[in-house]
């Protein structure tokens, strides 16, 4: 555990050194600019629009960071040969990989926390009086976004365990896009009447990450009730999927030959 924490902490420090957290400034500027514009042009429902854009921005920025950081960390260690002194110590390859993953998750957690704080701050300024600023649903939506980011980061780690950063980025982006369409593909497959297509889309639905499981933004913004079963299963899904991706990454990384 001590080893994992040491690698995770170093990974986080490296992300900070690489000025990854500067992206927060962009987030702040986008949100601030948007809120100023909305203040001038919208009538009513200002808090809804700020929540919509705030959650979407946290999601998009988070996904970009998860991909950018996730695909390059392992590659850099191999490319700069800094992996040799680490693996020469009593550190297993799987520990190295999982430590790296926790480092990315830590970076994402800090990003999401700061962005959320900024979102609540803007809601407090611009939308005070048009609804509660601190509603539990918003926290739940942010927690689900964080889980989605953790799954995307795990996918990035998996691809970077055997591929170049460019290809890993492409694969992870593809997984992110497909992850939001698998349920629709399954439905379309079922409607096609073609048994093979139906089976194939169903297999994809169960095998590929269904990132729509983490999308509760619509329900939260409209104050619709959230079923506790969905919250529990969604969290469990994230846990199982991340475990699967990290396990696969470790198995692949174990067999890699560094030269």
């Amino acid at each position, binding site marked *: 555990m001590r080893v994992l924490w040491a690698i995770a902490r170093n990974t986080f420090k490296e992300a900070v050194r690489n000025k990854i957290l500067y992206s927060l400034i962009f987030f702040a500027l986008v949100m601030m600019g948007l809120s100023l514009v909305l203040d001038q042009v919208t009538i009513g429902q200002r808090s809804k629009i700020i929540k919509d854009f705030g959650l979407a921005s946290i999601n998009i920025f988070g996904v970009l960071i998860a991909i950018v950081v996730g695909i390059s960390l392992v590659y850099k260690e191999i490319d700069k040969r800094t992996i040799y002194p680490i693996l020469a110590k009593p550190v297993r390859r799987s520990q190295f990989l999982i430590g790296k993953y926790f480092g990315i998750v830590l970076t994402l957690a800090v990003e999401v926390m700061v962005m959320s704080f900024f979102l609540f701050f803007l809601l407090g300024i611009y939308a005070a009086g048009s609804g509660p600023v601190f509603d539990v649903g918003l926290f739940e939506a942010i927690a689900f976004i964080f889980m989605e980011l953790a799954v995307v980061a795990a996918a990035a780690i998996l691809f970077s365990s055997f591929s170049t950063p460019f290809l890993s980025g492409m694969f992870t982006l593809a997984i992110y896009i497909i992850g939001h*369409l698998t*349920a*629709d593909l399954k*439905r*379309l497959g*079922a*409607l096609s009447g073609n048994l093979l297509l139906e089976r194939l889309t169903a297999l994809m*639905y*169960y*095998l590929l990450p*269904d990132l*729509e*499981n983490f999308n509760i933004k*619509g329900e939260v913004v*409209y104050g619709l009730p959230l*079923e506790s*079963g*969905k919250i529990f*299963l*969604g969290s*469990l*899904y994230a846990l*199982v*999927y991340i*475990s*699967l991706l990290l*396990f*696969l990454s470790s*198995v692949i990384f*174990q*067999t890699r030959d560094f030269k």
Partner: protein
Amino acid sequence: MGTLSPGKELKQRVFTIITLAALLTALWGVQKELHAYKTVEIESLIYLPSGKYLRPLALGYDQVAADILWMKAVSYFGGHYLTDKQYPWLYHILTLIIDLDPRFDFPYYFGGVVLSLEASQVDQANQILERGMEAYPQRWEFPFYVGFNYFYHKQDASKAIPYLERASSLPKSPPYLKVLVAHLSSKSGQKEAALNFYREAYQHTSDGMIRQKIKEKIDRVLSGEEKYGTGDTDTTSH
């Protein structure tokens, strides 16, 4: 990692396979349970604003956004067709698609025919078709279907005739349309014209569900159970 002894290597392989199998089974189980919560997902489309406002947000990917929504629309229609046969949001989704991508022609046909025949939303079907006429002024099918909807669902020949006349004057329209318009214009030939109209529509439709509906209509008109195309009756049996 060739440094492991054969026994240890075998153990590691077995461990890998068992762990993978356990994780995949757990994943399948959780996703199956989560699937039960999916029913309302597609209805989240109702939160989408009008396509006119959606367009700038699509950041130049209007066609892609329209394609994704089209998949959602088909999936929404299919899901409800197999269950409750209620489609309260179909019109909304279709208008979003044509707002985003007015040159995307299939949603006009789909909306024009399915909204009227399956969802009993004749006025909305005609609104979609009118948009199709704006986007494709040279396509005879759009005014033809508006005329068809007025004649078939509203039983209003007077409103159907101008559209059918327009359809018959457009390129590639079938020759029978001109004859049909002439028959519909004279009250005496209306029953025969109505039947010919439905038979032609039946012949030119490939969709099984729509053909079945038209067939039922022909049977009802033949048996005298239903009126056909008189301008003053506005009773709809659907």
